């Protein structure tokens, strides 16, 4: 009886209107991913000294394209599409019309924004790199484009909230489905985080870029950027965690370890991921050490929910393995479905998050930051966290999500190609990110084009590592193109059929979830208090005792 019920739950299909919306987001994300991969290859080969870019194509324009398209466009589109599909799947198979309308409105706004920003980058008017740090000044249309991308994503979030509210109205007194709760938490975090960048772009960068004001408060602009910049990392990570907590147990034939633990970790992220931005600015003059210290302390606290997630995943794997008869301390490891790309791609990402997280803890400590600040170690770090952990989880999702939405199947042959793609990506990243980490410890700077520093012997000794980095980049490009091929295949050419949208059931031994874990007024108020504690004084101080304003600089 229970098995029949479980089978019925797993047979729920996302209906056509919700699938179309979700697919529009996911495919736009992969289009951006393909473009970003081409830019990444060019960048890697040029930086490694393998090729020389033509005069009309600046290294920094290519870098900006790669960073903006990979970090902002691919991720944001994919995340919203994934959440729309999962919210529909866990709330009965469809999205309310209001949620869909908000979703489509947001999609169009994001597309228009991306096109505007792209034109300006390609025209050479916005080579301000992915962080668009002032006083480097881009065309105002680049900033307007990125603002539209962000505001459009807000509407995606409103769509998720609207579906959640409709479900709550129809199920008074009940806890929401875990996936939907996680989508709401992540989009709430995104709303809070993007306030910083929206204020920076609208009130500082755009007026300054149009020439309405002659100078800009650089310190304030960077504070606002990093108010957004760190929770952005969690905006990338939380959808991956959602997959690990909710979808992964079903894929491996196990159960969700604890609904309460999963919700508690997401709430901790909502609370703690924003008031930590100064750990990106530890070497920034103008911020008193006490405030840096406070942000570092809060950063160390945001490690806790990630450690909770690691514990949870080990427990899910071990429980599932032991239920299949595994013995010994690590016998369960062998019982995992290593030949299933839906599992293998994400777990490679999870494993990468162990050194990725270790690097993050190193970056956030003041003394260690002095060792790695502005070196290519940092580039290696976020290629482990975002481009391995998050990207490989997204690949794993795409292998079942796209066929589910298009009414097709992931065939055994496609699964094999997927496994090869995952292995090539992981190997490429091991070479590229590994050499970046090592070079960073040697002091190699980031954000620079190819240079031998006038044939300085120290700089020349880095060259073999630069070559390894470029080789890793080539492997990554091959894996990226395989992924694009798979996306095309699964969207238009795979055989018709039903691909399960895996949603894990809560384990039998899990404790009941306390109701406080869904009290949004309490959670959001606490988040606001923490943000005020961490930012109110430094921001007011930076405005009242502003450094001299900076005119715009075009460094390219």
């Amino acid at each position, binding site marked *: 009886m229970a098995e029949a019920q479980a089978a019925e739950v797993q047979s729920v299909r996302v209906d056509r209107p919700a699938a179309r919306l979700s697919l529009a987001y996911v495919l736009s994300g992969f289009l951006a991913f393909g473009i970003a991969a081409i830019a990444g290859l060019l960048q890697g080969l040029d930086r490694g000294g393998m090729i020389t870019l033509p005069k009309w194509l600046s290294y920094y324009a290519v870098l900006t394209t790669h960073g903006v398209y990979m970090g902002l466009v691919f991720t944001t589109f994919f995340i919203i599409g994934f959440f729309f599909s999962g919210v529909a799947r866990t709330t009965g198979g469809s999205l309310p019309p209001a949620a869909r309308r908000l979703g489509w409105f947001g999609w169009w706004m994001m597309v228009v924004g991306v096109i505007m920003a792209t034109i300006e980058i390609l025209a050479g008017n916005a080579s301000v790199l992915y962080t668009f740090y002032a006083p480097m000044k881009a065309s105002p249309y680049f900033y307007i484009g990125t603002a539209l991308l962000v505001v459009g994503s807000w509407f995606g979030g409103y769509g998720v909230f609207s579906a959640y509210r409709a479900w709550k109205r129809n199920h008074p007194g009940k806890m929401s489905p875990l996936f939907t709760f996680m989508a709401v938490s992540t989009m709430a975090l995104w709303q809070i985080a993007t306030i910083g960048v929206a204020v920076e772009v609208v009130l500082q960068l755009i007026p300054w870029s149009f020439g309405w004001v002659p100078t800009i408060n650089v310190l304030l602009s960077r504070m606002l950027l990093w108010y957004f910049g760190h929770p952005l990392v969690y905006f990338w990570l939380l959808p991956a965690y959602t997959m690990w907590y909710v979808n992964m147990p079903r894929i491996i034939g196990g159960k969700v370890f604890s609904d309460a633990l999963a919700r508690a970790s997401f709430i901790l992220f909502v609370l703690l991921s924003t008031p930590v931005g100064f750990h990106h600015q530890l070497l920034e003059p103008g911020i008193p050490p006490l405030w840096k210290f406070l942000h570092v302390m809060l950063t160390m606290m945001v490690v806790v929910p990630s*450690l909770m997630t*690691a*514990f949870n995943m*080990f*427990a899910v794997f*071990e*429980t599932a*393995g*032991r239920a299949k008869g595994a013995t010994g*301390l*690590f*016998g*369960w*490891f062998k019982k995992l479905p290593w030949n299933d790309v839906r599992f293998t791609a994400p777990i490679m990402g999870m494993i990468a998050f*162990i*050194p990725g*997280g*270790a*690097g993050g*803890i*190193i970056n956030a*400590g003041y*003394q*260690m930051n*002095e*060792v*790695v600040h502005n070196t290519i170690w940092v580039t290696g770090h976020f290629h482990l966290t975002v481009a391995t952990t998050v990207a490989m989880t997204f690949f794993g999702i795409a292998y079942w999500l796209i066929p589910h939405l298009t009414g097709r199947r992931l065939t055994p042959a496609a699964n094999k190609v997927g496994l090869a793609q995952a292995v090539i990506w992981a190997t490429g990243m091991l070479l590229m990110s590994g050499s970046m980490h090592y070079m960073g*410890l040697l002091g190699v700077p980031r954000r620079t084009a190819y240079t031998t520093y006038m044939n300085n012997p120290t700089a020349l000794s880095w060259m073999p590592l630069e070559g390894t980095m470029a080789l890793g980049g080539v492997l990554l490009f091959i894996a990226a193109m395989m992924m694009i091929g798979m996306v095309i295949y699964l969207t238009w050419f795979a055989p018709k059929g039903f691909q399960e949208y895996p949603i894990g059931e809560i384990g*039998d*031994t899990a404790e009941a979830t306390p109701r406080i874990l869904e009290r949004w007024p309490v959670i959001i108020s606490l988040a606001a208090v923490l943000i005020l504690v961490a930012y109110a004084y430094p921001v007011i101080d930076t405005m009242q005792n502003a450094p001299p304003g900076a005119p715009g600089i075009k460094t390219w």
Partner: protein
Amino acid sequence: MAQTSVSKTREHREEHAISLRGTLASVFIMGIFLLLAWLGVFILFLARL
């Protein structure tokens, strides 16, 4: 009567007991790795003072 209740509770617990020895070992190994990585870079910082 009280004894029966205690033994029932124990039975109930045992029924639901799952071994998480591997999880415990895994999180310890991960913790040691985090610590060693941190120490490594900290030593590098001290060496460069």
